[in-house]
């Protein structure tokens, strides 16, 4: 099923609502808004046939700032709500924009299923490596030792590697980008929205208010583009997994010189493979039992039950 599109391009600002973001000055999530509006403009999406779905969190406020159908759902439930939209209106592009807590903590159970079923959804996670809205607690992506309000002496847990997780779950497009690199972020989000199937972009998006470790200063000069600099071919699943397994090496002081990233944080498209989407399979199934007039083929269906 093709997405509804405009015949001409709208400027990116037409995809913004007239609400001013209530985010703190310097919040990394602003970069995601800019990149999304750019991608929407280039893709010629129609604001009246476009949906942006979120959960709860600072990052999940994003749909409020957009000129599109916004759905601010319960904490953790953005993906299943988006699945509902996909099934009801497969012609409408659906973006999920949420935080690392929303997607990988309380809403974790939905990710692998949306990914392996390959819904045509673009999921943009704003990963500030903690819960910001509730004022600084560790999330599943927080580094070891990170001090949040519930662990004043530091996190004893290991962060999860969301890139490996996404690949293992069956996501057909897996990328990481950084909100301090607007060009890369816009290109990556555009590539994700063009991908037919479940696309996941993990955006390293600093929270200057609470997270004093994973800052813009920390990331500056510390990212490495796996496609441009390392020549990674995203159709190579094995290589993608191998690279992904090092995605968190930069956290570890002992791995600062280790291959393949030498202490840097990887950005770029890890994986892009083509598979039939869930929506297309549903459409095919329907077709199978429809007579040419678009009605269910009752005779064929009832034949199965006739003695």
């Amino acid at each position, binding site marked *: 099923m093709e997405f509804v599109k405009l015949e001409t391009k709208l400027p990116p600002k037409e995809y913004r609502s007239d609400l001013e973001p209530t985010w703190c000055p310097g919040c990394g999530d602003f970069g995601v808004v800019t990149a999304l509006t750019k991608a929407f403009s280039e893709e010629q999406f129609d604001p009246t046939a476009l949906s942006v779905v979120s959960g709860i969190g600072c990052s999940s406020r994003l749909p409020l700032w957009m000129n599109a159908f916004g759905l601010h759902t319960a904490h953790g439930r953005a993906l299943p709500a988006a699945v509902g939209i996909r099934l009801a209106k497969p012609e409408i592009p659906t973006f999920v924009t949420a935080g690392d807590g929303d997607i990988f903590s309380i809403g*974790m159970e939905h990710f692998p299923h949306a990914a392996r079923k390959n819904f045509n959804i673009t999921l943009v996670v704003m990963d500030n490596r903690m819960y910001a809205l509730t004022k600084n607690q560790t999330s599943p992506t927080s580094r070891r030792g990170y001090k949040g309000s519930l662990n004043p002496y530091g996190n004893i847990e290991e962060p999860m590697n969301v890139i490996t997780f996404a690949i293992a779950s069956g996501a057909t497009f897996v990328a990481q980008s950084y909100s301090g690199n607007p060009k890369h972020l816009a290109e990556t989000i555009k590539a994700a929205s063009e991908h037919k199937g479940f696309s996941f972009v993990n955006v390293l998006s600093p929270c200057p208010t609470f997270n004093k470790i994973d800052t813009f200063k920390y990331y500056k000069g510390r990212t490495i583009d796996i496609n441009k600099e390392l020549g990674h071919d995203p159709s190579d699943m094995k290589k993608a997994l191998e690279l992904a397994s090092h995605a968190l090496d930069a956290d570890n002081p002992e791995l600062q010189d280790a291959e393949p990233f030498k202490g840097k944080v990887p950005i770029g498209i890890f994986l892009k493979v083509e598979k039939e989407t869930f929506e297309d399979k549903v459409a095919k199934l329907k077709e199978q039992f429809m007579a040419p007039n678009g009605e269910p083929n009752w005779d064929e269906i009832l034949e199965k039950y006739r003695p």
Partner: protein
Amino acid sequence: MAQKKVIALTGNQAAAEAMRQINFDIAAVYPISPQTELMGFFAEYVANGEVDTEMIAVDGEHSAMAACIGAAAAGARVITASAGPGIAYMVENLYVASGMRLPIVLLDVNRALSAPLSIHCDHADSMLTRDSSWISLFSENAQEAYHNIIMATKISEKALFPIIVNYDGYIVSHSIEDVEILDDETVRNFVGPSDIHRIPYPLLDIKKPVTYGATAQPDYYTECKYQQHVDFLKVYDIVREVFDEFAEIADVKYDFIEEYKTDDAEYIGISMGSSFGTLKDVVDILREQGKKVGAIKIRLFRPFPVKEVAEALSKAKGVAVLDRADSFDGIGGPLFKDISTAVMMSQNRPFIHNFIYGLGGREVKEEDFLKAFDRLERLEKGIETRDRFVEYLQVRE
């Protein structure tokens, strides 16, 4: 004799102090406003080794209650806290916990439910728990929240039912008041030591292995629920007993309900939680004008003190039930239905009317409750008429 000291504390600080003194074995936590700060205070106690509590930050409230169930079944003394949508997400496991007859303490820092999203106070979250066979106590202020948590621990373990202590989000949780704190030893003696044999069949009693929560087919499910039903009725006596024991250490004698100037009152307002202070002020204002009015606060919400309320209303002409949550069912708020049941049992059946107020943190002013008393009196005297039992106070139509 108990040593006491008065300190200025917020509701969340007072609750954290009670948690520190009780020294729970396990605390499960997932942050949500306005509860987060409470667990933050408690996390400091844990990190500094001031308590023996193992605290686990889980991945959501459903898991928080699951962790409590596991720990309580194993014989630990456990606590968790949440608010609004977090309570909603817990509900499935609340029924599991009470069906398993596990003593667990849950603090509900009352918050409205989505949508629209609101982090502010009302009682909709707690109303989700009202049929779950959890004992439920409401607190008017930080002092009561502190006392209720200490009493709740004991009530829950005696009754073998889990218990919720409610206090209003922000209004109580974040406001500073003078709170009288008992000394640690008195509190610890009052709740008694935690050991796995406080519950009859602890999961980890290796000499007596058991399974919790197995299937009951139609031939037994009813009997299980009946047993729960019968035992839940015994909670009244247990609560009274614990309130009495607590009076000995704290010099306050709590009751299921609190009555204010109801003796000769013709019109009575009923509320729960922090608004009771405003309600009492309104009673004083009207008394000065020569009106015979009174107020009742519900402290024990589940099991509902139906006899006590019926008795307290037995001489009234009219009753205004003030609900901080709507039921959206054409009848009225949840408290209204409970009070209506009590009125049915009352010899003299007073006129009863329902007002919804304070939703999503809407500030409650004296003029609001004055309006409620005024409308109640006019309705009761036939000066005005109604076409519904329930009306919203404070709304822009």
